[in-house]
C-alpha cells in the first residue's frame, strides 16, 4: 500500500508545510496568468495588486468600517439564530407533542433560503442592521435547529433510566442531567457549521445596501474594481478562519470528555 511515497500518510507538520506550498503555487500561477495576459486584463486582479488595494481601503477608513459593521451583523445574527435554533431543536426533540405539531411547519419553511427572506427583511426592518441581522439569523437558525433536534433524538435512552434511578426524573431534570450534556457534541457541531454559514449570509444580507463587507463588495464590483472585491473576499475568509479557530478551543474544552 505504501510503496509510493506520495500515497503515504503525512504527519501534521508536513501537512501544514504542504498546505502553504500549495497556496504559494496557486498565487504564482495566478500572478503569471495576469502578467502574461493569459486572462484578458481587467477580468482578474494580480495578487501583487491586492496589497496596495487593501492599503488604500484602510487609508480611506472603508475597510475598518465595513469589518466593524459586518462583525456586528454577524455576531448578533449568529447569537440570535443559534440560541433560538438550538432551543427550538432541543424542545422539538424532547417534547413529542411539540415535535408532531411543528413537523409540517418545519418541512414547509426549511427549504426557503435565507436570501429569499431579504425582501421581507427590508419591508419589516428596513435597510439597516436589524434587517441584515434577521437574514443571518434565519440561515443560522435552521442549521442549529436540525443539529439540536438530531442530537436529542440520538441520546442513549438508557441514560434517562440512570437519571431516574438516582432521583432525577421529570422534564427539567432530564434536560439538565441527560439531554443537554448528551447532545452537546451535536449542538456544538451545529454551532460550528453556523459560524461558516453566518459569514456566507453576511454577503447576502448586505448585498442590498446595508453597510458592511457585502455592500462594499457590491459597490466595488459595480465600478469593476475587482482588486477591492478580492480584498474583501480574503478579509471574509480570514475572519471565518479566526472565528473557527477560536471556537475550536471552546469546543475542545467543553468536549474534553470525548478525548
Amino acid at each position, binding site marked *: 500500500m505504501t510503496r509510493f511515497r506520495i500515497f503515504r500518510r503525512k504527519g501534521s507538520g508536513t501537512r501544514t508545510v504542504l498546505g502553504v506550498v500549495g497556496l504559494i503555487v496557486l498565487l504564482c500561477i495566478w500572478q503569471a496568468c495576469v502578467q502574461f495576459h493569459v486572462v484578458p486584463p481587467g477580468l482578474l486582479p494580480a495578487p501583487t495588486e491586492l496589497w496596495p488595494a487593501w492599503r488604500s481601503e484602510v487609508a480611506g477608513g472603508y475597510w475598518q468600517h465595513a469589518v466593524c459593521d459586518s462583525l456586528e451583523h454577524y455576531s448578533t445574527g449568529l447569537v440570535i439564530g443559534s440560541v433560538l435554533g438550538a432551543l427550538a431543536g432541543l424542545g422539538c426533540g424532547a417534547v413529542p407533542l411539540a415535535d408532531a405539531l411543528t413537523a409540517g411547519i418545519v418541512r414547509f419553511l426549511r427549504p426557503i433560503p435565507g436570501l429569499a427572506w431579504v425582501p421581507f427583511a427590508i419591508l419589516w426592518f428596513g435597510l439597516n442592521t436589524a434587517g441584515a441581522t434577521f437574514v443571518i439569523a434565519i440561515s443560522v437558525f435552521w442549521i442549529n435547529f436540525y443539529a439540536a433536534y438530531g442530537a436529542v433524538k440520538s441520546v442513549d435512552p438508557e441514560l434517562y*433510566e*440512570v437519571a431516574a*434511578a438516582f432521583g432525577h426524573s421529570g422534564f427539567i431534570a432530564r434536560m439538565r442531567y441527560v439531554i443537554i450534556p448528551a447532545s452537546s457534541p451535536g449542538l456544538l457541531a451545529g454551532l460550528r457549521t453556523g459560524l461558516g454559514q453566518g459569514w456566507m449570509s453576511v454577503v447576502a444580507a448586505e448585498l442590498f445596501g446595508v453597510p458592511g463587507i457585502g455592500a462594499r463588495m457590491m459597490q466595488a464590483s459595480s465600478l469593476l474594481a475587482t482588486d477591492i472585491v478580492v480584498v474583501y473576499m480574503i478579509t471574509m475568509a480570514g475572519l471565518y478562519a479566526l472565528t473557527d479557530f477560536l471556537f475550536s478551543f471552546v469546543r475542545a474544552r467543553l468536549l474534553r470528555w470525548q478525548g
Partner: protein
Amino acid sequence: MTALIRLEDAGLSHNNGASFVFRHVNLTLEAGEFVAVLGPSGVGKSTLLRVVMRLIAPTEGRVILAPAPDLAGSRRTALVFQDARLMPWRNVRHNVELGLEGLGLSRQERYVRADEALRLVGLSAVTDRWPRQLSGGQRQRVGVARALTVNPDLLLMDEPFGALDAITRAGLQSELLGIWEATKKTVLFVTHDIDEALLLADRIVVLAGCPASVRGDLIVGPRPRDPSSAAMRALAGRMRALISGEPDPGGAVYWQSAEI
C-alpha cells in the same frame, strides 16, 4: 427482623393484560438481608428489579416499602446496572455524585461523601478520570460507588458483574461481600449465574416460567462458602431443576426450603 419491602401478589402485564412478564410474585426482604433473584436470561428479573425500585409500577398486586425515617442526604433505593452506565461527560467523581445532587447537600458534603464511596471501592486514585479511560471492572466499581454513596436502605444490583471477565468478577464478588458485611445494607441481587448466587446470597429466589413466577425460595447456609462442596452442589442441582420446571417434590409452585 423487620420487613423492608414486600411484594404482594405483584404482576406486570403488557398490552392491558394480554401477556404477563411475571405474575403472582410474593416476596419479602428483611432489613440487612442479601437476597439473590436467580433465573434464566430474559425471564424478567431486571423488570422485577425495576418494579421493586418503583421505576415501573406493577399492574397487579402491591409493592410496599416499609416507612422509614427519611434520613437527610439519603435515597431509599439505589441501582447498580449491568453495564455500569456511567455518564460519559462526567468524570469519576461527578458520576458518583449524581445521586447526591438534588438532596440539598453542599458541594463540600457531596465531595466528602463521594470520596468515602470511592475509597470503599478502591478508586481513590482515579477520581478525575473520564469513564472512557477506565477498564470494565473500574467502571463497574464506579457504578457501585455511585449507588453506595446515597446511603440506600435497599441496594439493587442488576447482574452487576455479568459483563466482566472471570478474574475481575471473582475479585469484585469478594469485595462486594466485604462491603456488605461492613455496611449491612439490604441487597437484592439479580443474576443468572447459579454459583454467583450461591457464593453471595443469604437467600435465593428462583424466578422462571412465562409469565415468570417464584419457583423456589431457598435459604443458603453460613459463609464462607465453598461452591464445590457437596451441599452446595446439591443445592445447585435443585435450583437447576426448579429453573427447568421439573416437578417439585411437594408439587407446589411456591415453597420455602429448610436451612441446609
